[in-house]
């Protein structure tokens, strides 16, 4: 997968979790939680969906890596580029 397709995959997952949030103009440098209403339960849902859909494990100690869209893509790229 490319950066673009990883981004699309993340947007799709977040959209399923918080369907009422507008995800069309997210600032990719800023923390997601400052821009949309994502609570800690939503965050767990993202981790669980990544495991279910792409068989990717995000260990708890890496949760901070999923703060902004860019940092999320940076973190997931090595795990997802071969998919």
């Amino acid at each position, binding site marked *: 997968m490319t950066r673009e397709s990883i981004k699309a995959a993340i947007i799709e997952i977040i959209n399923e*979790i918080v369907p009422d949030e507008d995800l069309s103009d997210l600032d990719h440098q800023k923390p997601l939680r400052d821009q949309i209403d994502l609570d*800690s*339960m939503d965050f*767990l*849902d993202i*981790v*669980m969906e990544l*495991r*279910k859909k792409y*068989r990717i*494990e995000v260990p708890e100690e890496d949760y901070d890596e999923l703060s902004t869209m860019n940092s999320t893509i940076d973190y997931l790229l090595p795990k997802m580029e071969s998919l």
Partner: protein
Amino acid sequence: MALRGIKNIKLEYDCVVIGAGLGGLTCANRLAQSNHSVLLLEHHVQLGGLAAWFQRKHHIFDVALHGFPIGMMKTCRKYWTNEIAKKIVKLKGIRFDNPQFSFTTTYDRKSFTKLMTTEFGIDSSSVEQFFNYTRSMTFVDDTTMTTRELFENFFPGREDVWRLLMEPITYANGSTLEDPAVSYSIVFSNFMSNGVYTFKGGTDLIIKLMEEELIKNGVEIRTRATVEKITHNKDVITGVVVNGQHIAAKAVVSNANLKTTILDLLDDGLVSEEFRTKTEKVRINNSSCQVYIGIKEGEEIEYIGDLIFSSTADRFDALKMLDKNVTSRTFSIYYPWMRPGRERYAIVSSTNARFENWNELSEGQYKLAKNALAEDTLHCLEKYVPDIRSKVDHLEVATPCTFKRYTLHVNGSSFGTKFEGLPVSRDICSKAPGLFHTGSVAIIMSGWLGAANYGVIVANEVDRYLFGISEGQE
């Protein structure tokens, strides 16, 4: 429909869930949604655990449906169905009536800010700071500050304000001023965000919808199926023994009481002596008494509020609230809109109670004590519904012994364990790989919202564990 007993059951699953309380149900559903094979076992004939109801003649009584925060709507939408989420409606009036104050509120930040500034004369900046502070607390924060210290800090000496802030929470989860401020703050802030909500249709409808969803997602559900043992090979969990039959499972989630899980269901020696001792030291929360009051067909009750916190005690005292000599109780009033199609009223009175006060009674004393409680409750209710006695056609009492019989909780606990239960519940998977616990612990994992969300949190951990096993096999 869930089947009774274990006849024709498959003998191997990815995960067995012990207990169909809200945490067990939600955990099972999440695991099934992640394509695991799941067996859900419940000792009772009915699913839901303390999310219970029962029918007497033409009355249906809800045991635990008194109100939950708006967060339950999102939780139901995400982890159950839109249909269930859409049944959630807001209660209009939460009424306080005690010697210190008497009014009706929507029990949210806006209403409380107004009450605290006008009725109690607190300056608005202190109120705002209190709300912001409690809202910012999470369970990784400092847990040494007690709720008493929190109140003393913001509203020194104002026991009337403490009562306003604390009494409903004590009813909701059995906590006292000595419990950590963080557990108080999380529960209080959840309610304050938008008031108190309930399920239109009642507990029976919600549990029925949940059961349908579980079956649709492929969960095998068995009731009257009592787990006697959690089995292991060396250090690793291998399944359970239910009704005398061994069922193999890669993971086991216990939604049974925390202490029962570790001290009774596990073999001695599987976890360290130190961990067992830590478990033994976990304090159990108190239990409850309830009086169920059925109103005759055709009779009406004027609107007196949806939830009434009624007390004759001159000041707030969590210990006094546990006393068998009842001075404080809540009335949940169920109006006909609650169960569309059944034009009936029902009232359920709840008090916090101690198991030992009831368990030690002789059969005769027990019966007398139940009658006295029913009579006392009607007497108290006459203040709000003067002609209540002529409207009632069913009166029934539940005690801590009743709660123990139906839930198997240690001492009939209706709110799980005190705060120290949380690390034990969280650590069990590192002591006995493959075993997880979800259930009412530490106050914050208690109640409708806490229990359901804890089921989801644990489902994520089970899913990770099962994923690790399948990766290892490849």
